[in-house]
């Protein structure tokens, strides 16, 4: 005994409304006869019977909206006399609707699955670190209220600290986190630079790799971050300095402390006769116009670069407990920028440049360093740094290595000194050169060899 069910009349239909019956109970119907009119939200459609039979009983009244597949009327087989009691549902008839919402199982409360707390309450609970599922709600029908959450937060707080403290330093109080590019964040992590200490920002107000590298080349991993209480809630952003003018005092402090803490420095020094160089420079400068004139500092840089090429073990980086040689010699030149900032940008491939080119590069680099127009690569790449404080009048510079480099050359002032040569005493212009070395990467002997080669090269200025 088949049944007449709500048909699926369209791809997007899962329920329909019985508009009217086109037959009466007790009528005989044949396959294809229209039985009822159904409304499918778009239009009314006559629905036919797919079976022959006698309409026994209407199970759904006109106007009712039911899911596709719901039985609308029961049909008795043609030959049966209509029986009073509807026969048991025949197995063949489709009972469970193919689509449409599952029938309800009646109401009983399942313990402890709170009806989903509204988002604002969920957010508030999360902020206070309260687990909603552990709460018995005091609201109607067991719902959790805001008061419940606050009570729970207070209850589990160990000390009578204001609610604010107990929560993880709430986003509300922490100064807006400084914007940094993903690469900058990754570099900061790799080079141990605390982003919070990087005050330099790019043109777009965010920290980029250049600023992190700048900080790394002149700064040290920050001293363990000061206890939260120390940070004044509203940290006044330092006025944005021109880009690339080197790290601020805090970053320099951090860099130098890390260098001293992590790098076992050794120092070797020697005094070098600059007679041949100064004589050669004086003669050749006389033939040059004033803007092509070459200073001793440039000559010293060129000689150092050539020497670094001869001694690659001092031209590179100490990374992850191993020495990584530089791909070429890029001498970092420590530039004292007025106003206290310090930066050591690189002259790329210094050893390949002619002496006039080194001089031009030096002038250009220092000028740009002071006006904050250094390029990212220049800050990123020094493989060995030279600190020439001759102009500042000191005779000897015993410097701190810039991590992650493994050596530093300190150059003092050119000084007239008594000088013995071939048993005779004379007066010669001399300079004190000091090499600081990272004892993890090399030993004093390597530093000594470096200085000897440097001294030898300075005796043949025409070869620079």
């Amino acid at each position: 005994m088949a049944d007449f069910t709500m048909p699926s009349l369209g791809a997007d239909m899962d329920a329909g409304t019985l508009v009217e019956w086109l037959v009466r109970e007790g009528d005989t119907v044949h396959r294809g006869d229209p039985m009822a009119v159904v409304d499918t939200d778009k239009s009314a459609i006559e629905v036919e019977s797919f079976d022959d039979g006698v309409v026994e009983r209407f199970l759904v009244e006109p106007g009712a909206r039911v899911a596709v597949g719901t039985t609308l009327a029961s049909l008795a087989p043609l030959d049966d006399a209509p029986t009073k009691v509807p026969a048991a549902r025949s197995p063949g008839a489709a009972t469970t609707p193919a689509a449409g919402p599952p029938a309800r199982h009646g109401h009983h409360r399942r313990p402890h699955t709170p009806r989903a707390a509204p988002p604002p309450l969920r957010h508030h609970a999360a902020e206070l670190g309260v687990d909603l599922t552990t709460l018995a709600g005091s609201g109607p029908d067991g719902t959790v209220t805001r008061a419940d959450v606050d009570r729970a937060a207070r209850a589990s707080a160990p000390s009578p600290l204001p609610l604010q403290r107990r929560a993880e330093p709430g986003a509300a109080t922490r100064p807006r986190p400084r914007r940094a590019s993903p690469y900058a964040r990754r570099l900061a992590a790799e080079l141990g630079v605390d982003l919070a200490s990087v005050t330099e920002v790019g043109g777009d107000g965010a920290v980029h790799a250049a600023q992190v590298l700048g900080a790394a080349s002149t700064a040290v991993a920050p001293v363990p971050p000061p206890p939260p209480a120390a940070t004044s809630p509203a940290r006044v952003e330092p006025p944005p300095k021109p880009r690339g003018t080197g790290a601020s005092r805090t970053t320099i402090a951090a860099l130098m402390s890390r260098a001293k803490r992590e790098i076992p420095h050794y120092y070797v020094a020697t005094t070098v006769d600059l007679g041949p160089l100064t004589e050669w420079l004086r003669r050749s400068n006389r033939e040059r116009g004033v803007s092509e004139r070459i200073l001793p500092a440039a000559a010293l840089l060129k000689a150092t670069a050539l020497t670094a090429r001869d001694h690659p073990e001092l031209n590179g980086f100490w990374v992850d407990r191993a020495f990584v040689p530089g791909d070429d010699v890029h001498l970092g030149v420590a530039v004292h920028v007025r106003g206290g900032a310090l930066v050591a940008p690189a002259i790329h491939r210094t050893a390949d440049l002619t002496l006039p080119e080194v001089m031009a590069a030096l002038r250009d680099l220092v000028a740009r360093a002071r006006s904050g127009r250094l390029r990212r690569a220049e800050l990123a790449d020094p493989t060995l740094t030279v600190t020439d404080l001759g102009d500042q009048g000191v005779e000897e510079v015993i410097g701190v290595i810039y991590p992650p480099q493994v050596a530093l050359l300190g150059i003092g002032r050119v000084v007239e000194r008594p000088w013995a040569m071939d048993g005779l005493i004379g007066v010669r212009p001399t300079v004190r050169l000091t090499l600081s070395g990272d004892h993890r990467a090399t030993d004093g002997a390597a530093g000594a060899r470096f200085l000897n080669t440097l001294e030898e090269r300075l005796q043949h200025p025409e070869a620079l």
Partner: protein
Amino acid sequence: MTSATVAVRETTYREAMRDALREALAEDERVFLMGEDVGRYGGCFAVSLGLLEEFGPERVRDTPLSESGFVGAGVGAAIAGMRPIVEIMTVNFSLLALDQILNNAATLQHMSGGQVHVPLVIRMTTGAGRQLAAQHSHSLEGWYAHIPGIKVLAPATLEDARGMLGPALEDPDPVLLFEHGTLYNASGPLAEDAGPVDIQRAVVRRQGRDLTLISYGGSLPKTLAAAETLAADGIEAEVVDLRVLRPLDDATFTESVRRTHRAVVVDEGWRSGSLSAEVSARITEQCFYDLDSPVLRVCSAEVPMPYARHLEEAALPQPEAIVAAARAVVG
């Protein structure tokens, strides 16, 4: 290593493509060329000049102006074992055949459960720059690169113009070849024995380390020009020629961006929903932790292409805009 001097001749993009057509027609009798004015007229851009005389009207077929009809016919002929090359005069007219390309060419195999293959090549001229105004200046490669079931190529160099057609014809699935209108007259040296090229990979046309410029087709020359301008200013830009717009060769351009940490995508399509949007999304997905600045895009202004020269130039991506974007990302 002294290589034997390779015989080289001066040629143009148009002649390179013509040689490719001639070679395809000569080597495989299943191949035939069909399109408006490809025969007696010698091709709207003179690419198929002389081929009718050489191969006859059966193999070089002029068609009535019935894009949907003859493109669909190309699909049908391909299903039945031919290797048609259908030329749609310009991408602008391909809109009339988009239904045949999308609902038939690209979809039949999947819909038929793998039974029906469509080894069809469709060539279209694309892009603006010749003051042909809005209806003749579209750059819609990005639309087609959106469709699963077809491959999309953009030959920008003489080698690619000469070498992409062969492998495209051997491909069992539909391949669309977009030839930018401004490239036909491009001339330069090409090896005498230049032959088939790869049609899967993008290629680095210029090494660089400060940022990656990604482009294709008609925009490549402008991108290379911008790279030279940047180099004079000490910024070394790496230039990646996509060559294949579907499937995109992510590996090549993401590898580059991981090195340079900065990317600018140059695309003559309109910015919104353009191919450059897809390239940028893939870079952000795959190189997020290597990005030192947002991926920028230099695209056409979102306007119907104006006729007036100064307006068209203002609407199109130009080297100056590429240089500016590059500076912005390098910071």
